[in-house]
């Protein structure tokens, strides 16, 4: 996909551009808010990654507000050194779609960009989800793998639903905490891993082909394999 990065720090920019390009994306980069706004307004992008604090000229949040007022619906990920929840709320309120604090792991950034892109393509929340031979019907809340029904606790259902909606993408622990439990803090333990292994017991244990995989140093992914 085509991504615009508005970021003034050269090192961070290089690191992000290189990583995104390796992941197969095209990246345009603007080091100044003005250039960023110009590019965002004139080119069609799939995702915009916007640094919140830009030196001198225009503030990142101001650019987002201008873009939104102009009717742009491109998903925007805000990067910021301001880590507090209030800052995050302000960022999202200005029209950003997701918020990532610096310093961040590249895997986290990539996963969030993918998730934003996926979300922007529009998903019907009521359509059944399918990954390989695993089926989930959000309406009836029935989950089956092959012919076998799988019984899930409500939270396990939510966890699997989130993973399946992002099938084929890496989903980080932080994304799971935020979206499945709505926990915007780091519980400092491996509880998410334990939840995942419990879920794995239910959907993968008795099957030859595992669907829920751990991605080293990044998170988890549900995919049909290959």
């Amino acid at each position, binding site marked *: 996909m085509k991504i615009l990065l508005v970021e003034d720090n050269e090192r961070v920019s290089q690191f992000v551009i290189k990583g995104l390009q390796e992941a197969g994306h095209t990246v345009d980069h603007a080091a100044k808010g003005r250039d960023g706004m110009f590019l965002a307004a004139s080119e069609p992008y799939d995702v915009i990654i916007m640094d919140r604090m830009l030196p001198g000229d225009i503030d990142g949040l101001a650019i987002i507000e201008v873009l939104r007022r102009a009717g742009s619906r491109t998903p925007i990920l805000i990067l910021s050194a301001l*880590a*507090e*929840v*209030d800052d995050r709320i302000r960022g999202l309120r200005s029209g950003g779609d997701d918020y990532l604090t610096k*310093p961040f*792991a590249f895997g986290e950034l990539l996963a969030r960009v993918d998730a934003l892109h996926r979300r922007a393509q529009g998903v019907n929340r009521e359509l059944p989800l399918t990954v390989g031979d695993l089926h989930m019907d959000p309406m009836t809340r029935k989950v089956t793998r092959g012919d076998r029904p799988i019984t899930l606790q409500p*939270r396990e259902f939510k966890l699997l639903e989130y993973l399946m909606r992002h099938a084929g993408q890496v989903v980080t622990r932080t994304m799971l905490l935020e979206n499945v*439990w709505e*926990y*915007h*803090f*780091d*519980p*400092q*333990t*491996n*509880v998410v891993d*334990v*939840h995942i*292994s*419990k879920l794995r017991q239910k959907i993968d244990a008795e099957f030859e082909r595992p669907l829920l995989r751990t991605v080293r*140093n990044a998170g988890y992914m549900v995919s049909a394999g290959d």
Partner: protein
Amino acid sequence: MMRSSALSLALGYVALGITALVLFAAPLWYAWQVTIQDGRSEILQADAMRLTDVYRRDGGDGLRSFIDARVHMQIAGDRILLLTDSSRRPLAGNLAVWPANLPTSAGNYRLKIDTGERGIQDTLAHVAHLGDYYLLVGRDNKLFAPLERRFWYGLTAAIAVLSIAGLLVGLITRRALMSRVHSIRQTVSAIIHGDLKHRLPTNLSDDELNTLARTINGMLEQIEQLVHGVRNVSHSIAHDLRTPLAELRSRLEELALMRPSPEMTFAEIDAAVADVDRVIRIFDALLRLAQIDAGLRRSGFVPLDLVDLVSTAVEFYAPAAELKNIRLNFKAGASAKAMGDPILLAQALGNLIDNALKFAPENGTVEVRVRRRDDGCAEIAVCDDGPGIRDSEKVKVLERFYRGDSSRGTPGVGLGLSLVQAVAKLHGACLELADRNPGLAVVLSIPCSESAADSLSVAPAPEASTRVAAGAPS
């Protein structure tokens, strides 16, 4: 000296006193004057009356000889007596001529009269018409002067005493005040130079300066504690960050020196990233604590149900408990609504459950209870059957970066309980560490909605209390 507030206050009082004195004396003076005047006129009239009687009895000549006899026998004293004919030619008396400035119509007059041998005197005169004669009876006003003088002397003396006493009291007060202000100034300048141990001198009395000094001492106490806390925390930060940074450094240095196989290198790099993440985590925790301490987070307060919050947290940690073969029991009453920051409360609760799971023994039990007490507080209790906390350590575990003996060898940076305490303080809640023999019960009492809304609107900074109960059955 004129700028001394004590002195100007005293002078102000003196001026006020003098004004009051004058305001008091003036009507008195007036009433007195009127009374005296009336008295004098009566005396004169009585004199004139007696002469009139003589005139009625003996006629003009009789009166002449009567007056002459009196003047001659010096009975008249300092009185002025004058009898004239209709053209004011003197017939008898001790005045040579009818005074030029005295009218002839009957009545009382006050005027200066040249008496000849006795000089000009301030006279109260009474003029009467007796047939064709004019009669003048006068008395020297000076007779009353000593009385007046005494009045003025009295008033002046009172004013003088008042002024001198006021000035003296002002000076003494100023001196006393200056010496106290001086000692306060000395203490404060010692504090300015960095010695926070100093306190303002106070005594047992309840006067204004003492009250002020006590309040300031209270403030100094708080400041000293805060500064002490900040110093401690910065020491701890420096110390706690050194450990992961030292590990990181040696890892990287070893990597540079040894140049191991690519696989080993990547593993080491991963470990290095984990070290950096640890440092970042410590910073995040500290930032959050600082923000909670500053009370900035109260803006994030929303109405919430603590039972929901606790059950989510229990459910979140249930698999971790299962993994360690710990029974995680959850007991909840009906809903317990309160005002609070859901994210912070969830984090505090997470820390408590995480701690309990960490310290509960294998096959042990952790119990989480939430209920609404009769006193309007919601009580959240997290109990374990681990080693517990010794009484001597109970206060310390709430300090930042403190790690008890029993937590050696467990993961964590020693900020968990301080965060719980900070969150409790922000919510006006009470945090209690109680013994269960064996084990520890951490009880968090949060004011419920109705009372919470009140206490938050009335007291913008609710005082959190931390009770450390020893040996209390939970």
